[in-house]
């Protein structure tokens, strides 16, 4: 190698805290995970107990309302996890629910529905927010999934978010122009709800998506909740449909209607009334009442469905989905 005297200027730095990223450290965690094809089927309660610890950095795909791990988020609240750091990318109501439930004290912002509770928690300093955006958070996860410590991005520069983030503006090593680099993100836990998975964790997702693959590879622990458990034979019949490989996965939970009250594209529609209810709870500062009803007053998902939803409603949601589920959502 030609050694060099050159330097690259760091032109500006955000002053936000960020979860320290060292790809070598992430590799040490990954080294501990089993490589063989082990059965990982377990119940939701066990999965959250075993793989979500107080203080963890948590991400989820997509969100509470759209093919998201809504059931897993409710179980985290039910188990009263504490001091989580949330990756609040492309999320609607999850941040507000987890924050008001007392589960988190830090949020990396992409997008979420705010309201009186989050304003109060922010002003009281009980939840600290660091400012990014959906695409920047995705770039951070992508870096984490590539095993590198940062990525250059062409957005984010010049914003006030940059100032309150972990990003830097540096001289580009090739063009010499200013370029923003954002720190990789290696979450402790990713919650991913999928259409189909086998018992080892090979997972299929139908439809467009946000950053399922990036989250799975970037995270130290991965919990898959799945609408359907399919055989590994079925997985092997159409390998092009597998989005997440088994070795990244720690727990597989069979959780039909796991995205309820949200939609799981092609499988069921959202429960429009419930969606209205959770938005109203956030806007009208009644999140605790919402949680009492939908989380704390029931012992688990099955209990919630039988007490508060009913088979008729679930059938209706499936029926409404079939209108558009003509193609593309099944092998």
């Amino acid at each position, binding site marked *: 190698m030609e050694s060099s005297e050159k330097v690259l200027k760091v032109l500006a730095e955000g002053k936000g805290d960020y979860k320290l990223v060292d790809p070598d450290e992430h590799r040490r965690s990954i080294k501990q995970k089993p490589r063989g094809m082990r059965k990982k089927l377990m119940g939701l309660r066990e999965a959250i107990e075993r793989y979500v610890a107080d203080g963890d950095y948590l991400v989820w795909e997509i969100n509470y309302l759209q093919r998201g791990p809504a059931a897993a988020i409710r179980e985290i609240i039910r188990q009263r996890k504490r001091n989580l750091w949330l990756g609040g990318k*492309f999320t609607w109501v999850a941040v507000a629910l987890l924050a008001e439930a007392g589960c988190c004290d830090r949020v990396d912002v992409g997008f979420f529905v705010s309201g009186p509770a989050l304003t109060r928690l922010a002003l009281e300093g009980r939840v600290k927010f660091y400012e990014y955006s959906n695409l920047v958070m995705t770039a951070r996860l992508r870096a984490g999934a590539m095993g590198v410590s940062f990525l250059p991005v*062409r957005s984010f520069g010049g*914003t006030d978010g940059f100032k309150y983030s972990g990003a830097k503006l540096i001289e580009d090593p090739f063009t010499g122009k200013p370029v923003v680099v954002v720190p990789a993100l290696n979450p402790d836990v990713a919650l991913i709800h999928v259409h189909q998975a086998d018992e080892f964790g090979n997972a299929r997702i139908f439809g467009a998506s946000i950053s399922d693959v990036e989250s799975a590879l970037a995270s130290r622990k991965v919990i898959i909740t799945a609408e359907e458990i399919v055989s590994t034979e079925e997985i092997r019949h159409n390998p092009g449909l597998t989005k997440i490989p088994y070795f990244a996965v720690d727990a597989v939970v069979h959780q039909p209607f796991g995205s309820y009250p949200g939609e799981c594209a092609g499988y069921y529609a959202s429960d429009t009334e419930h969606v*209205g209810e959770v938005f109203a709870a956030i806007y009208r500062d009644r999140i605790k009442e919402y949680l009492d009803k939908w989380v704390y007053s029931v012992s688990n998902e099955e209990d919630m469905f039988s007490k508060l939803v009913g088979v008729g409603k679930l059938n209706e949601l499936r029926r409404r989905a079939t209108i558009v589920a003509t193609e593309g959502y099944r092998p």
Partner: protein
Amino acid sequence: MSLPKLHGIGEGPWRGEERASAFAEREFQVCIAARMVEDGSTYWVAGGGGPMYSVLMAKRLYAPDVVYVTEDGLVGAEPLLPFDPVMTLAAARPAYRALMWTTMSGIGDQSGVGYLDYGVLNTLQVDPYGNVNSTWLGSYPSEGRRMNGPGGADTIASVCRRLVLMTDHQRRKFVERVDFISSPGYLDGSPRARELAGLPEDTGPYAVITNWAVFDFEAESRRLRLRAIAPFVTVEQVLGEMGFRPIVPAPDEIQVLDPPTERELTILRTEMDVRGQFTDAAPDWVVWEDNQWKMVKREPQKGAGPGFI
């Protein structure tokens, strides 16, 4: 006229179509935005609300060869309308008959290399240089209100060639300096401010469309400039509801926008905003009475409850 023409403005009565005689101001805004959509272009559209309605209406009526993407990985969808509440992204109806389903990184890459011509965003607060706030109202982070965050808007505003902003025409929306730059406009307005911050060349705010007016950005100063007003307001009213004074051309260079057509409204009301979530969320209404436009307040018609999109 010495100013550059704005696409879709000034062909009134609009395409010779039947003019509507009563409409919500937000409906008017969507129709104006739809007419400004440039056919044969690519759009990155924020999820839901005015931006998406306008591009969908444009595709139906004026710009059949427009292809739009959304941050959940959709390219060129022909969505099944209407959407369920909130289900405007990452759901089956908006994804229907797309040309491609990819991911957020996929759309990020397509936009990064420059395939997306226009971005369309809603904004909570905008300043003379088109900077957008969606993070915090007040003095960050110690006083005021926590808002939703930029979502995908930061990137839409950074990498699309031309950025179109939509906002309600209210004094609190147009501020001399946004409380927080969530998504970049021309930043402090200085030459090459965007490039020096690491953003791609040849990008930036292009137009702001409100329920009362259309603005563009003057090339030299990169400041907001009034270009057209609704037929039911005056220039004075428009300026009176702004927290700063935009560039105001000579009166004969300010065009008067054509009101919605019946056809536009029918599509909007029967196919898109069927629950009234969008229109009913704001009470401002315009009716044609006694040979003039009158502005009135109106109760929600469809009982949509809280104004979530």
